[in-house]
């Protein structure tokens, strides 16, 4: 051990090189957040288990759906396209939402957020990087699983000669939208985590937006349940993934706007709150 090693070697300049451009800075912060996300074994394990459970339960649900007595004579409340995503809607979306909440709350809980903010004083840059990395990871996971669920479900249906093909109207849109929904829920989780800061509270807030608001709307009296309910995440997502959505829901284009608006609101609220509060 020499003084040169203490200082980091003679080749390194003693002081910071000229300030990095915005692009380089963005790349640095993104790389840092990606390292954080991928280096937690619990993240990899949870996603792997969630994917396995989703696929198994998709098979179970679709099998039940296909072999239900009277399936041929009575039209089911859920069409064969949407049935592909029934397991995905819970066993993928809930774990990924919780992991996204932890992106911020685990750092607040351990105090690591101070290290993060002293390394990157621009808190909006940190939020943007965390949201981008988490959202992108969720989008990839979501699309892969959505396609897997779709093909698995239709393979089971095809055994009974009533499968939907990817080329049939609305099918491709439904599969792509299912992946987008996972990214939207992940971003709601990131925003909730940054605003609430405590894990339990933030999970409650995120689950309220992702699931419970829709349930609450269903408890409203007759015309209002669907009038308000169509603006919640689950109904917007359902309007996207169903081949024949029930009346009263928004058109797929507007539903996509709803799917974008909720995460935008959550991350926007986080951006306002993060810069105003002490860390």
């Amino acid at each position, binding site marked *: 051990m020499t003084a040169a090693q203490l200082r980091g070697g003679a080749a390194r300049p003693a*002081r910071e090189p000229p300030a990095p451009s915005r692009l380089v800075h963005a790349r640095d912060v993104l790389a840092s957040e990606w390292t*954080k996300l991928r280096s937690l074994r619990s993240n990899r394990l949870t996603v792997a288990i969630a994917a396995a459970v989703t696929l198994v339960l998709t098979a179970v649900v679709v099998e039940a759906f296909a072999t239900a007595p009277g399936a041929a004579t009575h039209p089911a409340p859920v069409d064969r396209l949407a049935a592909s995503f029934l397991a995905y809607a819970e066993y993928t979306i809930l774990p990924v939402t919780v992991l996204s909440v932890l992106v911020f709350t685990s750092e607040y809980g351990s105090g690591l957020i101070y290290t993060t903010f002293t390394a990157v*004083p621009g808190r909006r840059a940190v939020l943007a990087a965390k949201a981008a990395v988490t959202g992108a990871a969720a989008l990839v996971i979501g699309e892969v699983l959505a396609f897997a669920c779709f093909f698995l479900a239709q393979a089971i249906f095809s055994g009974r000669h009533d499968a939907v093909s990817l080329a049939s109207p609305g099918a491709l849109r439904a599969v792509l939208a299912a992946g987008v929904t996972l990214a939207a829920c992940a971003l709601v989780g990131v925003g909730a985590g940054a605003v609430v800061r405590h894990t339990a509270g933030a999970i409650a807030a995120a689950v309220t937006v992702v699931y419970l608001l829709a349930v609450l709307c269903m408890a409203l009296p007759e015309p209002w349940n669907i009038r308000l309910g169509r603006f919640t995440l689950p109904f917007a997502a359902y309007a996207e993934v169903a081949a024949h959505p029930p009346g009263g829901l928004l058109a797929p284009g507007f539903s996509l706007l709803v799917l974008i608006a909720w995460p935008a609101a959550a991350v926007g609220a986080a951006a306002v709150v993060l810069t105003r509060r002490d860390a």
Partner: protein
Amino acid sequence: MFSKSLLFTVLRALDWARVEDSAPGWCCLVRPGAHPAVLVVALVAAVAVAFLVFCLVDLARGRVRHLPKWGWALIICVSVPWGGLAYLIFGKDRTTPGVPVPAIPRIPDVTTSVPGVPRKPPAAPVVIDVERLTKRFGSVTAVDDLSFAVRPGTVTGFLGPNGAGKTTTLRVILGLDAPTSGTALVGGRRYQEFIRPLHEVGSLLDATALPAGRPAWFHLLAIAQSNGIGRRRVREVLELTGLDSVAGRRAGEFSLGMKQRLGIAAALLADPPVLLLDEPVNGLDPEGIRWIRQLLRAMAAEGRTILISSHLMSEMAQTADHLIIIGRGRLLADTSTAEFVSSTRRDVRVLSPRAGELAGVLAAGGAAVRAEDDGGLAVTGMDAAAVGDLAAGHGIAVHELIARHASLEEAYLALTGASTDYRAGTPLPDASPAAAAR
């Protein structure tokens, strides 16, 4: 083709099983010391899950039937391997409690120049300037109109009792808390203006603030990447703090001393000209404390600006050249360590068989005399030589004659114990003329 070594490679890569090469055959897969109950629970759970899935599939098909004769055999054959795998993954390995603490490397003494190694002090010395800083949390005033400057080339100790506002001040300097009024500048700039602040200021606020599940290497790498620092430097600071052998272990398994070293490693990542450390010696053993002390002294000798906070006066006395002492958010003293000691109470203790007579002589000579419990006299206003001469002149025998300084500890307690009574600028208690005039 299925190969044992391939399986082991995969298991090692996943960090799922402790694979011991030395064990014979497949025995190496068994976790030494793991409780057998874990295996039983894992197997039972696996069978239960398999049974549940079987029932679910049945229910889903709209009919409930009894398990066929071969059903149980199938369930057990399928679930036992899964149970074994669960045992490997979750069975806690009890043979290695915690992470072995690696040895602390020797710090090069850069105060005496190392031959052949060019000394490169920071390009420009950086000063930390805190100017009339006030921070209130609701009705509580944590920092109250605090002003001080931290100069390069010295180790400055930031002292105060618990709750004096040390950490709040550091948090404001680091841009974590917004000041209610006043400024805290590093090299003339607010911390928030730095794009890559680690190149300007290395800091450690709370060594235990670590991601429990993330290996130390990735923790440092994430911090380094955010400031455009390469992997080579991450390896260097791991070597410097002696943590390179445990870099792959999760930070949550570290002992407090190792966490402190990891925090120091993070602070040194960009080789910054300024170091801000909050209670850096907490949880360190004597060797670790000496290591930090040498490190800080070496870095100060290179012209860096170093501020370390502590509530332990005795520790600071050996590390810091300069002291900034605060109490209840206000500045109590901003002075060099040597001056702080000399400015505090001093007296002469004298023990004599004719104490009463001697006391009268000393009082007549202009000294203030106080009797102590054991019959000795505490004399102020006269030095030891004068006391001895006076006693000799009157033919009084003296058995003990000691010039006493208050210890740094006592001086500190005297100062902070009454911290509401002393504002910034008020002379220290029993201050020497030199200190009062300053």
